[in-house]
């Protein structure tokens, strides 16, 4: 998958792009080839993006888990026949491994077509070339599912093999007679190897005829066999018969390779379609597993969703026995997001980015409903996004340089997700910078969501204001210092939902409550509350 200009490395990391790539990865070598070339749709490509998401959603809706699994398992173990097709197209005579791969390729296409027959969004892949090749290779099918250049391909091959079998029989008989005679004369059970040792002390008289000495030592002789004339004649007959088989086999291979060459273009097309099917099945599985539905792809730069989830976290929470609180949001220009620490501001931003990325790749999105535009760039600025800029700069300097880079790229329309930009400078100037950022984004026609703890940014920047609802009450710290219990208490007390704030922002003291919840002693917490009230 190539994110190209849609995401830089820092944004890809912050928005868990690798997680998404793993979740929609195909299983076959054909799928991997298509997947490697997958790129996001650009603004103006709303229609194909919509069609792809709809097709995947249709497959997910119409295909039961068993058949989906069956089709993917068929694809998973499929050897790659593309090399064989290409070599045959170039005029090479293929080796038998190539025919095996091609037979498995044809079988898999026919099997998957039968399995997915009637599923909306899935067109059959079998074409005339697949049928012709499958028929041409049929004589090579073995009971164990292998391929053998059988005599059924050609009567001359059959005859040549019969001649070889006869010649081998005659050679084996002649050789066995020789070996038995020599072993008997040497007083041994058998002569197991081509070179053998005869101890001088065991030797009665001279060596039997047909034994040649390779090396002499004081106590033993290293010997080898020298066949007699009848055995050598049988050996020559066998060699001639083997040559005849080799020629007949090569003739069959040449004929089969010509058949592949004749249909190479259509076979390549089938291979590409098989790869695309694999990629679509992987995406359908993703949609089924995570209850995704296609977003309405908008020609406008908007991001609107109901009951959306940031899947990497949702999966992690589910594994821990907890649940992700789905988020609702409508964003059509710039907005500010406030809320308590650990209230999910960053997750809200990540949800925005994740939904936008899914839509950009023509995937159903993890939301009950979504309307999403296609963006030129989805960028993350702030916590987690500045690591790649080296250690000599301060956090604030890194953020400024990153913002400069993002604006410098100027790929419209931009979706900028800002997580506490300027949090490390003084609040007065930080606020001014955020207001300036809102203004700058507006002028660029960008969509932006700025999460911050600073008050008054939305009002002064004339931006819409969203807030995490926050703590439902001040939770009582657990009796123990167990962090897991503290987090569970926090989760039970926190309303992670996002709501638009229309009036003045009410001052909240959630941070001090969290400090208490996370185990700081009472005196410290009381001092903080006293300082706050002054």
């Amino acid at each position, binding site marked *: 998958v190539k994110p190209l200009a849609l995401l830089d490395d820092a944004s890809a990391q912050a928005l868990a792009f690798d997680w998404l790539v793993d979740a929609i990865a195909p299983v076959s070598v054909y799928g991997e080839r298509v997947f490697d070339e997958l790129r996001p749709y650009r603004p103006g490509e709303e229609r194909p993006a919509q069609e792809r998401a709809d097709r995947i959603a249709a497959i997910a809706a119409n295909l039961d888990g068993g058949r989906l699994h069956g089709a993917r398992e068929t694809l998973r173990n499929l050897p790659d026949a593309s090399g064989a097709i290409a070599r045959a197209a170039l005029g090479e005579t293929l080796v*038998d491994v190539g025919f095996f791969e091609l037979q498995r390729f044809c079988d898999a296409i026919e099997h998957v077509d039968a399995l997915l027959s009637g599923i909306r969004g899935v067109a059959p892949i079998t074409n005339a070339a697949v049928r012709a090749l499958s028929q041409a290779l049929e004589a090579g099918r073995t009971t164990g599912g292998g391929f053998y250049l059988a005599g059924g391909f050609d009567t001359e091959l059959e005859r040549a093999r019969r001649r070889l079998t006869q010649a081998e029989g005659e050679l084996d008989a002649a050789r066995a007679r020789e070996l038995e005679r020599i072993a008997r004369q040497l007083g*041994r*059970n058998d002569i*197991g190897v081509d070179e053998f*040792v005869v101890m001088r002390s065991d030797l009665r008289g001279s060596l039997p005829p047909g034994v040649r000495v390779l090396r002499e030592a004081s106590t033993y002789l290293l010997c080898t066999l020298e066949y007699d004339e009848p055995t050598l004649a049988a050996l020559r007959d066998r060699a001639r018969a083997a040559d005849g088989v*080799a020629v007949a086999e090569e003739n069959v291979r040449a004929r089969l390779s010509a058949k592949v060459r004749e249909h190479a273009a259509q076979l390549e097309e089938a291979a590409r379609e098989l790869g695309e099917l694999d990629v679509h099945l992987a995406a359908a599985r993703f949609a089924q597993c995570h209850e995704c539905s296609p977003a309405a792809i908008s020609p406008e730069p908007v991001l609107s969703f109901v009951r959306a989830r940031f899947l990497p976290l949702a999966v992690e929470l589910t594994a821990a026995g907890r649940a992700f609180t789905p988020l609702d949001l409508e964003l059509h220009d710039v907005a500010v997001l406030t809320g308590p620490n650990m209230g999910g501001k960053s997750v809200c931003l990540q949800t925005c980015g994740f939904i936008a990325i899914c839509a950009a790749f023509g995937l159903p999105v993890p939301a009950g409903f979504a309307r999403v535009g296609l963006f030129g760039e989805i960028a993350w600025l702030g916590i987690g996004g500045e690591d790649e800029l080296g250690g000599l700069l301060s956090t604030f300097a890194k953020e400024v340089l990153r913002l400069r880079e993002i604006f410098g790229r100027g790929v419209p329309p931009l979706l900028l997700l800002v997580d506490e930009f300027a949090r490390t400078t003084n609040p007065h100037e930080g606020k001014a910078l955020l207001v300036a950022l809102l203004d700058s984004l507006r002028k660029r026609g960008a969509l932006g969501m700025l999460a911050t703890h600073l008050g008054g940014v939305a009002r002064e920047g004339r931006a819409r204001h969203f807030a995490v609802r926050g703590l439902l009450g001040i939770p009582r710290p657990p009796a123990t210092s167990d962090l897991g219990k503290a987090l569970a208490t926090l989760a039970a007390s926190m309303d992670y939902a996002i709501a638009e704030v229309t009036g003045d922002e009410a001052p909240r003291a959630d941070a001090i409550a969290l400090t208490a919840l996370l185990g700081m002693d009472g005196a410290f917490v009381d001092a903080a509350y006293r300082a706050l009230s002054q």
Partner: protein
Amino acid sequence: MAEEQAVRVGLQLLELARARGAGSLLVVGTGKNVGKTVAMRAIYEAACDSGLRVGVASAGLDGEAVDQIETHPKPRLWLRAGTILATAAGALPRSPASEILGVSRLRSAVGRLVYARAAGTGFYELIGPSTASGLREVLDELSALSEFVIIDGAIDRLAALAGGHDAIVVAGGAATAKTVQEAADEIRALVQRLGVARFDPDDAVVRVQGALTVTQIGRLIALREQRQIVVRDPTQIALRGKALSQAFVKLRIRCERPLHVMATTIASIGPEWSLEPRTLVRAVAAATGLPTFDVYAGARAP
């Protein structure tokens, strides 16, 4: 010392392995040209004569007409029809055609591996997977396709077999030792190293992460360590010569996943010199305490 007996070496090795319940047998050597492939062929012939469906493979490059490293002539593998083999796709002879049973995602040093059934008798080149884990996969696949598997092994690939029931035969001889004593010591050292026993879970242990090195051994001996020194498997013991013998005398070296060395074979003839065969087979048997076979002479000691 018992006299050596004239025997069918391949059949005896096969019977020893099967008596232990091993469905596969690996031949590893103290070095190059110590008769590994000759021993393997003897066992192969015996297994075929016994009517078994045999699978064969190599742990690396093997079966070439000439040794790739030392350019000495090597015994080639003449396989009978019906033998299952794992080798690189490009190493399969075009004629006689083989039945192709599967294409692995594993790669060898010269390309991807395939599983095939020899449809006709002929010379075959065995090229194995390039990793230890790959060898395990090949062995499992061949075990599923055949009744007895014979592998031309390499010591550095044995890790993947540790903890299994595969039988190991150690081959050694004149190619790597100038005297009978030297050859016997060398084979004994390898047998001792590969034959390290499983640790006793009820006794105290010092676990060694990764390889057990000379430096670690020196420290443990200096500390007069009495606990069991436990490595993951015998291939993690990176010791040779005096360090190895000292370690086995002064420490209790054990492993989590043992290997099963069941016999040794000797090749008294090396490329440059040879050793007296009867003396060698007796010396190796005495040094290792294992049944020892001279494949070339068709002899066994004790």
